[in-house]
């Protein structure tokens, strides 16, 4: 039998139900694994081991009473440091929130607790989810388990690395421009950004409110489907959360995959793409064709505008969302402020990292009087065009296949001095957030340097079941799900 920490949820459920092991033993296995590899990976910024074991014990007691809460009862779920967990630290990998603990649970955390999950640790990330490499963390960089010299992607780098390295069974990340899919691709795991509004954002510390979405990371498509099921549902505390009928994603995996029409946007295979990635995606497309899927070339003509539009809208919203970290109530307060203006500027100056400051300044600029129309308003118009591109495409196809990233994982420090090069890493994922659509990344190959390659499957709004089943079909016919990094 494989190690507990590398098992999938169905296997773990069977084991827990048959009393082959207890939830505490499962949790201990994950804790031991984490202890063994964390010095190299640094996926976590905080771990409350006592609390995790306490939750696992409670799960065992429920099972002993015959009160099994379902697929997640006793399963350790790693949590990105941007989601509020009651009484746990909530720092968004920033010094500005040093010492802060959340007095409440995010709605997705409440749903996981109700499903019996063990809420496990605080996973590393780029500060306030701003970055694509997890190098912008105030609490150290996270390593890619496949190559410790390489970055794991970001901003949910901790979430992807932990799942890849066996430090969590599954994890939650957040995705504003690719922050789940990109690290999932670079770490060789599955990661999904659901349709905007499918999952409550209550308790997700806002970066860009109109783009942010919580989503699952896992080693298999099925585990992502299960985790997605557990956290969806309308939330009266989030006005942007939609009232959708609950879908049983995990049961729908095998049902309808065949004979779907897959669109391949020509704009995503032009300059800038690594040849190995291009080849891997084309090979995957060939496989789908051979399995009876219809493949159609499509066009998303406004794709090249995604990065500038994104960096206007996301930074504008961020400049306002991050204004609350002012040193007055709960965030870092400068010790040498002489007056209120200095309290604001020094506290923020000391608390925020460089990339966060860069984006706050950019966002403040694009919203300024005299610039608003030229930047923010125009960006919103282009955003509509990008959305229309997808609407147009989805009249012909059921899902769209693209690479997740233009390159595999790069070396630590390689792009940290070149923000634009870093921003271009999200070139294939950003448009999905701007259009509010669901998309996932799954491993479809390895480079010659043994780095994972991810493929993105984009769906129609609320088409999660479709893209999960398309991905599942590829996964069960290929061996990437069971590849493990040598750490």
């Amino acid at each position: 039998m494989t190690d507990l920490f590398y098992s999938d949820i169905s296997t773990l459920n069977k084991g827990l139900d048959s009393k082959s092991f207890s939830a505490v033993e499962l949790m201990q296995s994950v804790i031991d694994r984490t202890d063994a590899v964390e010095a190299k990976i640094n996926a976590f910024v905080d771990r409350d081991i006592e609390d995790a074991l306490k939750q696992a014990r409670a799960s065992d007691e429920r099972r002993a009473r015959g009160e099994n809460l379902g697929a997640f009862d006793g399963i350790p779920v790693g949590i990105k440091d941007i989601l509020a967990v009651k009484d746990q630290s909530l720092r968004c990998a920033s010094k500005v929130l040093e010492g802060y603990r959340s007095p409440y649970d995010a709605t997705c955390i409440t749903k996981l607790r109700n499903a019996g999950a063990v809420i496990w640790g605080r996973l590393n990330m780029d500060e306030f989810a701003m970055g694509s490499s997890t190098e912008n963390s105030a609490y150290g960089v996270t390593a890619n388990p496949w190559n410790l010299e390489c970055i794991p992607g970001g901003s949910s780098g901790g979430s992807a690395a932990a799942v890849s390295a066996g430090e969590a069974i599954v994890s939650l990340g957040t995705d504003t421009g690719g922050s789940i899919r990109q690290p999932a691709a670079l770490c060789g795991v599955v990661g999904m950004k659901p349709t905007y509004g499918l999952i409550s954002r209550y308790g997700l510390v806002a970066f860009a409110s109109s783009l942010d979405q919580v989503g699952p990371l896992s080693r298999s498509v099925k585990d992502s489907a299960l985790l997605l099921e557990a956290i969806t549902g309308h939330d009266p505390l989030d006005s942007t959360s939609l009232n959708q009928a609950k879908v049983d994603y995990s049961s729908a995996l095998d049902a309808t995959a065949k004979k779907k029409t897959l669109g391949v946007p020509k704009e995503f295979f032009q300059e800038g793409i690594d040849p190995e990635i291009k080849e891997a995606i084309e090979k995957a497309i060939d496989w789908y064709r051979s399995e009876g899927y219809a493949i159609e070339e499509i066009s998303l003509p406004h794709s090249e505008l995604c990065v500038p539009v994104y960096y206007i809208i996301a930074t504008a919203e961020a400049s306002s969302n991050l204004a609350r970290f002012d040193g007055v109530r709960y965030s870092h307060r400068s010790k040498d402020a002489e007056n209120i203006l200095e309290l604001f500027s020094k506290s923020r100056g000391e608390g925020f990292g460089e990339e966060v400051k860069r984006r706050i300044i950019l966002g403040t600029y694009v919203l300024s009087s005299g610039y608003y129309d030229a930047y923010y308003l125009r960006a919103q118009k282009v955003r509509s065009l990008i959305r229309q591109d997808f609407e147009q495409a989805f009249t012909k196809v059921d899902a769209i296949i693209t690479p997740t990233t233009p390159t595999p994982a790069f070396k630590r420090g390689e792009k940290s001095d070149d923000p634009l090069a870093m921003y271009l890493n999200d070139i294939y994922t950003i448009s999905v957030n701007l259009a509010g659509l669901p998309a996932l990344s799954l491993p479809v190959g390895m480079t010659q340097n043994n780095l994972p390659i991810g493929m993105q499957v984009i769906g129609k709004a609320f088409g999660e079941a479709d893209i999960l089943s398309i991905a599942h079909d590829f996964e069960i016919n290929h061996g990437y799900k069971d590849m493990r990094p040598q750490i």
Partner: protein
Amino acid sequence: MKYEVVIGLEIHVQIKTKTKMFTAAPYHYGAEPNTLTDAVVLGLPGTLPVLNYEAIERCAKLGLMLGCEIAEVCKWDRKNYFYPDSPKNYQLTQNEQPLCIGGSVEIELPGAARNIQGEHRWVQLNRIHLEEDPGKLSHTAFDTLVDFNRAGVPLAEIVTEPDLYSSEEAVAFLNALRNLIVYTGISDCDMEKGQMRCDANVSLRLKGSEVLGTRTEMKNLNSISNVKASIEYEIKRQAKILDANESVIQETRRWDASKNTSFSLRSKEEAHDYRYFPDPDLMPVSMDRNRVDTMKKALSERPFDRQRRYQEKYSLPYTITSVLCADRELSDFFELALNYYDAPKAIANYIVNDLLRELSAHSEVGDSALSISDTKMKAESIAELVEVVESGLISKQIAKEVFTEMFVSGESPKVIIEKKDLSQNNDDSAIEALCLDAIANNPKAVAQYKEGNAKAINALKGPIMKATKGKANPATLDALLQKLIQASE
């Protein structure tokens, strides 16, 4: 003065709701600091706003009362600025699309004398929009303290056009607006409790000029008398500048009521760039037209409409209606009493004179006058009192005693009269005997009466009223005395 004054007002009114604008945290005035908060009010990381539909409905109702157009959609913008009373460092407000557009307020200008009705005029509004109240700062010698109880309270901002032309008009406007809002129940508009606050934009221009002069904005006006004083101060200040051929600087000023002066807060150049943009956390809500139409039909009567109705239908004088209609509770009470006994003038007189006197006499020193609902007073009792006076059961004199008693005990006049044996003595033979005694004992008064001094008869009435404890019917007594005096010749 060679200048014409042009004034525009911005009035913030706290909308009375159980919970705050964007969360279920409650609000009421006077609670211990920072006890009426929650994670959303404090802007804790990860929290999101949720609309209070009751506040939107109440603001729309206010707009309809003021003749505004109601917007097709209710949407929200962020107004970004750093200030320690603002938990998120942005305020949710309606910049691009106010909930209510246009509208006007009927005002009454001061009359020639207090008891003479003044001219009425309609003052044009620009808009009414909704926003969230910030917290409250208290400055101590060493520190500044923040109380977030008030943060997130729904606030309607009513913006007039520059359509007021004197401090008196501004006062008339605020009184009319306050009365109207209190009528609707949307707010109590208690300025001392911060439920209504006012900023005034003042500019001067040469009489006859069509172009507006440079304006200043006066902040921190928390009473109507402050509004008046600050505008008058500002008119003098600007006139002095213009007289010296200098330019008024566009700026925001703060009124210091303790020193009766204002000082500059910031100039136009230092004005904030609020970086407004649509709030991505709140989806625009379309305003249901059927619901708006239903609300429109169900609007309550405006105070000035009510006053006109009283004057026309009941022929009540201005001195009565201006008191009665200034307080919805009083006029509602009046109308309730009318249902029991149709004597509008007498009932109105009891309410405006006797009831108001008792209300103020029974309120604690320093407190505002009691309201009717604080007492045991019933509308049917006033109606019944008028009825028993008119039927001759008791005199007006006795009625005063009965009134005082029924105000305290809440008992009906008939019960009080019965219990205290106050009904008028109409036993003519007994009164006749008393009258004959009085005539016999007061030859001087009788003689004066006969010489044509009609008032002399009062000297005879006194002892009779005393003997009957005031229960003799005054009209009967008059007639009887006259008859007996004639007969005594």
